[in-house]
């Protein structure tokens, strides 16, 4: 059952991908948790643990194998399982979402203003003069107004993120999804993006779901946190729970899961998380052997 204040309820979600040998590999195992209205929920976990896959399932980009994803946005009387919905019905809910993904880049052939205007043009018959005003409001909110007529290639990484955020909020979404919003940014720019995320979340009263593996950022912005490991939820709880685990002496933690979380949050390089199993194919190939050999000699 979906809880009353949940905007998204994920129930026993399983997701697999086909493998080269004709089999399937399950990357999300029975994932269950709620995203509550108005909160900023941060999903953490090592590379390859399934964070992006989970996000893509939530926004309907990937079909799931089993389970349910229930949405209840503001105008909905009751929660609806979107996994069985037709494209057109899901689009009504999708319109309430804003998405800022790693790859969700801007169209390079358009100015910033045109990029932000795009969702408005696609979803409405609003006059151009009004669209222009909304675009100005949105660019102002992310402090990018001075760049409105620039092409994306003329912008820095941080500016592109800001502009992407302006576009993601063009239709006044109720739920904002972010995948690694500060990836590839320097610490100062990354902090500025975090502040923007918090600013929008409080001012627009949106629900935010943020995937990140950057701990400073996670602890800055989260109301609650979810820790994923190898496609499973290790723990979900308020930020303070995770702060306690992070700051605890590992030896004092009673469960293996908590020790794993402690290690992850402190960025330790040895211990269970460096097991090749939890890594992406790429990492296995590139650093799986090289790094662990290094470590044994250190």
């Amino acid at each position, binding site marked *: 059952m979906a809880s009353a204040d949940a905007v998204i309820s994920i129930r026993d979600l399983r997701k697999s991908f086909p493998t080269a040998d004709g089999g399937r590999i399950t990357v999300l195992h029975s994932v269950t948790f709620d995203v509550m209205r108005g909160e900023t929920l941060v999903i953490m976990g090592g590379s390859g643990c399934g964070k992006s896959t989970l996000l893509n399932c939530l926004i309907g980009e990937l079909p799931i194998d089993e389970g349910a994803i229930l949405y209840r946005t503001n105008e909905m009387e009751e929660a609806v399982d979107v996994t069985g919905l037709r494209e057109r019905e899901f689009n009504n809910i999708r319109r309430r979402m804003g998405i800022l993904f790693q790859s969700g880049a801007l169209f390079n052939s358009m100015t910033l203003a045109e990029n932000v205007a795009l969702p408005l043009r696609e979803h409405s018959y*609003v006059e151009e003069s009004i669209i222009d005003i909304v675009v100005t409001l949105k660019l102002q909110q992310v402090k990018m107004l001075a760049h409105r007529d620039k092409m994306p290639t003329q912008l820095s990484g941080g500016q592109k993120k800001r502009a992407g955020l302006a576009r993601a909020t063009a239709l006044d979404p109720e739920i904002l999804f972010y995948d690694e919003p500060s990836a590839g940014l320097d610490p100062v720019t990354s902090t500025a993006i975090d502040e923007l995320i918090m600013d929008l979340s409080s001012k627009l009263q949106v629900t935010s779901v943020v995937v990140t593996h950057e701990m400073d950022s996670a602890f800055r912005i989260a109301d609650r946190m979810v820790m994923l490991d190898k496609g499973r939820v290790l723990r979900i709880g308020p930020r303070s729970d995770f702060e306690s685990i992070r700051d605890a002496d590992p030896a004092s933690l009673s469960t293996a899961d908590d020790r794993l979380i402690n290690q992850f949050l402190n960025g330790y390089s040895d211990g269970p998380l460096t097991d090749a199993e939890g890594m992406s194919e790429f990492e296995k190939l590139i650093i799986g052997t090289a790094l662990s050999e290094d470590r044994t000699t250190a």
Partner: protein
Amino acid sequence: MDGLVKNIKSQNGGTVVEVAGEVTLDESPKFHSSLLEIIKDSPERLVIELSEVTHIDSAGVGTLVEVFRRMKASGGRMFLVGLTPRVRGVFEITKLDRFFPILDTVDEALAS
């Protein structure tokens, strides 16, 4: 009246437009043309009464700003009155409250 515009009246040399409901993207095209119809004779003073507006989104705000621009261009004045805290908040977030004439009551707008 249909759509979001519930009532239009002339009062002390001003045109008072009472709006009710949700001023959103979907309603914007119709709402905009209703307002353009109202201002086509270039009234000197337009007062938009928003106390019955339960929700306004960015496109709704954009619609009001667009009409405000037109009023200004034709030498008229436009006021927003009766905003609920929620609606007022939207103007504050977008920082439009800094240059949009927002007053409490119709009488204040007609007297100013």
